[in-house]
């Protein structure tokens, strides 16, 4: 479904991604693990056309999307729920959703509200004034309304209370049952691997390791890269 083949990404002169390759097959949940600055967000930015790679190719459903503009990549069927507070805070929840809405796909506002009933209650609230968990819902809902067949989630558990993280796991299982493929970047390896089929471990802009989720969870040599169970609360610089 998604094929990232040996991409090199630069920010100015710094060589941030070095020959990153990864694959997501239809129906899969794949997780990208690694610490802050490992290159997870940059990989997502490259896939979405925000920071196009200087070398290498990205194909989605057999179409080359490497140098398409972001909006064209979204319309091709890729959706990203970005990390951090990347919502339109001055706009209401309803306006945030309306901006992402593409008619003619499986996701309607009614379905999104059925998945996140809280968002229906908050529809006229400004996005700047909703809680972290609600913002996460809104980011995912917004990405769903653009009718993706592959959903990219960047650090979905970041800043969420444990009870909300558990809830998030439920939403993701539900979306997976709907046939959505998911590529997720996470530092919370235990959470991510419990949902995923496969995973990649990144460090310093390279893919270090690839394996089945069950294998990654138990591989002792990876514990040092994954920081399983503990979440460093450093500011995001990736």
């Amino acid at each position: 479904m998604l094929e990232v083949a040996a991409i090199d990404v630069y920010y100015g002169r710094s060589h941030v991604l070095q020959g990153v390759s990864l694959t997501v097959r239809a129906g899969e949940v794949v997780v990208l693990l690694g610490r802050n600055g490992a290159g997870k967000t940059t990989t997502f930015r490259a896939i979405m056309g925000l920071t196009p790679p200087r070398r290498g190719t990205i194909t989605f459903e057999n179409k080359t999307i490497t140098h398409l503009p972001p909006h064209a990549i979204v319309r091709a069927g890729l959706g990203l729920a970005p990390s951090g507070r990347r919502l339109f805070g001055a706009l209401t929840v309803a306006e945030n959703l309306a901006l992402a809405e593409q008619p003619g796909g499986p996701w309607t506002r009614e379905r999104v509200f059925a998945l996140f009933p809280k968002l229906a209650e908050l529809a006229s609230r400004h996005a700047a004034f909703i809680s972290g968990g609600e913002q996460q819902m809104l980011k995912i809902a917004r990405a769903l309304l653009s009718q993706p067949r592959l959903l990219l989630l960047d650090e979905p558990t970041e800043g969420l209370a444990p009870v909300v993280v558990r809830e998030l796991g439920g939403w993701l299982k539900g979306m997976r049952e709907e046939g959505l493929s998911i590529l997720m970047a996470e530092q919370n390896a235990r959470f991510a691997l419990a949902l995923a089929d496969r995973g990649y471990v990144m460090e310093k802009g390279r893919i270090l390791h690839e394996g089945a989720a069950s294998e990654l969870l138990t591989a002792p040599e990876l514990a040092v890269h994954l920081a399983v169970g503990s979440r460093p609360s450093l500011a995001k610089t990736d």
Partner: protein
Amino acid sequence: MNFASVAIEVLSALTAAANLFIIAAGLSLVFGALRIINLAHGSFYMIGALLMASLFALGRPEILFWPALVLAPLLMAGFGAILERLLFRRIYHAEHLVQLLLSYALSLMLADLALRIWGADTRSVPTPAALAGVLVVGGASFPLYNLFVITLSLAVGLGLWVLLRHTRFGWEIRAAVEDAEGLSLCGRNVPALFTAVFALGAFLAALGGAAVAPLQAIGPGMDSAILVSAFIVAVIGGLGSIAGAALGAAIIGFFQAVGTLWLPTWAPAFIFLAMIMVLVIRPSGLLGAAQRAWAEED
């Protein structure tokens, strides 16, 4: 000093303020969404007035006024869209100095171009017959055309408010002000949106020029004169805020009226004084802060 002369002064200051609002709103809108400082905005205003004069010269004024008032800004909007695609698009991520140099160079070129097309003589546009009269209230006679310019600016303000609050295009503009990249992730074509916003800004500048045409001599120099005032209004209100532009225009109008009435020789200084006072107290302009607070929190 009697009521009549005070009233006339106030009306004339209000008219200038109303017109400034139309122009400054365009400047502010473009800065808010595209983050560029466009020093050629005054040139768009001048070209709007000159186009108005040229369209007028085509035939009978009483018939041509209304279509010309719409057509002149539309032509400028189209020209603005071309300039955005060819020039401004390339400098969105450049530092402010590059943006200032490019737009300043463009304003010089447009001034020369205008000189070549329209010549150095000033032109005048007659007031349309329907608005040539005066409204007499309490012994003071108010020119109808001034009242029209004030009404037009109120309509522009209302129109922009409806556009920004209640249309998808407006939501896209407000979203782009906060996070243009995030908007592209919503599947929206941000470069096309920027072209449209830039064209809208050019439309407003030219509308200001076309509307003010019957009130003043039209010719070289209009561009730089209005640019300073429009920037003061936009900066006082907070660059990027349309409501701020309205407030800034009202404040400038007030200071201009007071200055003209009591200290005519110092009138121009009052405007700068108002700007300095506002910037000392609120460096981001009167209504420019709310947006920044959210951006800093991120």
